[in-house]
């Protein structure tokens, strides 16, 4: 019986259950221009990887609870002490000390603005976002870096005020659990599973 690969951690070790690969037979590639001579072979492969979020786990867990976490360098000796980083970084890029995790959901709700954006008609294989994808890069007051995400409702514009929404219902526990909508978007306009 086939079953998606599942993993949990016990005693500091991965415990795995189910199928981590699917078997599909090779097929020959032949030349229709030249007597169907053999040119090569297909190599199907479908695998499930086991990936640790490590020190960023709290960021991805928090998205599913409607919270946007960031980090701040509180090392008194650091030249950039007090700098807030979003995307979340575990260590300060200047002094390499472990940073403090902070909840910046409010800052995001009050100050998030589109720094730049892109409406993308194409996607690669395994994409699950609806096309066209409206990529946005978001700046926040008091945050020294810029976050990439996507706009779920409306048309993006540079400088547009946006607010975060979170997939609290059936979260994927990936970066896709966070999206953005223009300020004042009504909650009944949000995509399925998402709320403010």
């Amino acid at each position, binding site marked *: 019986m086939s079953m998606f690969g599942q993993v949990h951690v016990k005693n500091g070790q991965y415990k795995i259950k189910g199928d981590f690969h699917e078997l599909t037979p090779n097929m020959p590639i032949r030349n229709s221009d030249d007597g169907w001579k053999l040119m090569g072979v297909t190599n199907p492969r479908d695998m499930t990887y086991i990936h640790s979020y490590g020190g960023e786990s709290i960021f991805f867990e928090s998205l599913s609870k409607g919270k946007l976490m960031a980090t701040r360098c509180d090392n008194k000796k650091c030249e950039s002490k007090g700098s807030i980083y979003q995307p979340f970084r575990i260590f300060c890029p200047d002094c390499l000390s472990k940073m403090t995790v902070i909840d910046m959901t409010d800052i995001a709700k009050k100050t998030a603005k589109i720094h730049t954006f892109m409406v993308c008609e194409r996607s690669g294989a395994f994409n699950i976002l609806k096309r066209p994808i409206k990529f946005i890069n978001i700046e926040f007051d008091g945050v020294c870096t810029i976050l990439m995400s996507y706009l779920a409702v409306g048309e993006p514009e*540079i400088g547009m005020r946006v607010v975060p929404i979170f997939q609290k219902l059936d979260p994927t526990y990936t970066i896709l659990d966070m999206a953005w909508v223009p300020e004042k978007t009504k909650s009944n306009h949000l995509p399925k599973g998402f709320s403010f």
Partner: protein
Amino acid sequence: MIKFSDKQLAIPKLMRPVYLVTAGQSKFDRAFPDKRTEELCIDALTQAAEMINVTPAELKSYIHTCYYGHFADHFGDQLLGEAVIHDRLGLDPLGNCGVKTGGATGGTTLWEGVKAVASGYSNCVLSMGWERMDEVPTDEGNFLISCAADKDWESPLGHIYTGYYAVMAQKYWKVFGKEEDSFRRTLAEIAVKHHGYARMNPYAQSPMKITIEDVLNSPVVAYPLRALDCCLMSVGAACAIICDEATAIKLTKNSPHKPLRIWVTAGSHTLRPADRRDMAIPLLPNETADQYKDLGKKFPGGERYPGFTGFLAARMAAYYAYNQVGIKDPTADLDVIELHDAFTISDVQTYEDIGIRPYGYGRDYVESGDCYHMNPKTGKPGKLPSNLSGGLIGCMHSVGATGIMQVFEIACHIWNRWAEIHGDDKLWKKFDRKKPADWTDLQVKGAKRALAISHAGVGSHVTATILMDPDKLIKKDA
């Protein structure tokens, strides 16, 4: 503001002069159903030997170490593909090393080769690059490329690298391009130019005689970028032989060309754009801090550096390179360049990063006609012709080979062999390509100094390779 220490900004110095002796490349195409990668690599190495009138076996007898640029193991579905190629080239038991820095892999492979010779470790190095991008359909290929973005923070967003690039394009388009139709047409002109030059290049994958309107009417990929604004996905190989002076002289005894001095520098920037604090613009020798004081006033939104409008990695590679070899003004001191035109707009961004024009004014390099072989405005030779190979838009982007192809091309100009190689009827026939009736000699007359920029999206790694006729150095002790 981030500040860099003088140790970090120190100008590189080679321990001894290093020479590019010869180079070669395979045909480039979207797919080679009839060839294994090693066949393409052997084509490239065989040409490198023929260029200096030695046999492949003789050339191999000089090689001491090998650097192999092959970016994407998952594309070719062969981990340690370097070991396979090294074996098929019959170069065991020499030491070899795989190099991967995304789109800049080719340039970085040269960087490693130059350092190995400069340090005295080797007198002769093979730097070889290739990419096998036809083992998966384009959709899956786009997925595999997107794996080069941050896998937790970016790749799941559409699995499309073009999108991660295009947000930078959009910012540049709005801030410096001011969303002007005239600027959009300038971008299209770059695509027309590069597909057009590709028509004269038998190696090139996408020769096209097109108009600005054709570009503007091609399908939107990510607004304002359209299909014809984008680089190719390719298969092919290229190589270079890098030597110390004594070996260079020996190897070119019967060669129609002399060895060229070569320098390679490198810069980097965050994988996620704007992922560090901002900074002052690092200045090139032809710039002053004063000229950027009111950049944000002239171009509102352009005050954050490096932000989304420029590639810090390219600026740093140019900073190290120009200061190392004594270039004061790239337009005046260089004769021909090859830039990494992944997209028409990133080509313009690069003009500014490497100081061909100041930040904000990159478009003028195209609009003035300086970037052409023959300036269409004046009917005279362009001041600094760029991408006469057709670049990534017209010739190829076989990732690990790209930076080396660029160097092969600029070397052909300094060797005054461009027409001999690119006009060769036998080569056109061998590649099963039709030489156009209006084939034009694109040799840059009297070229003595050249530059190639190899770049990884979204500006994570960039190298600058400079070639000079050893009799035309700017700085004697460089």
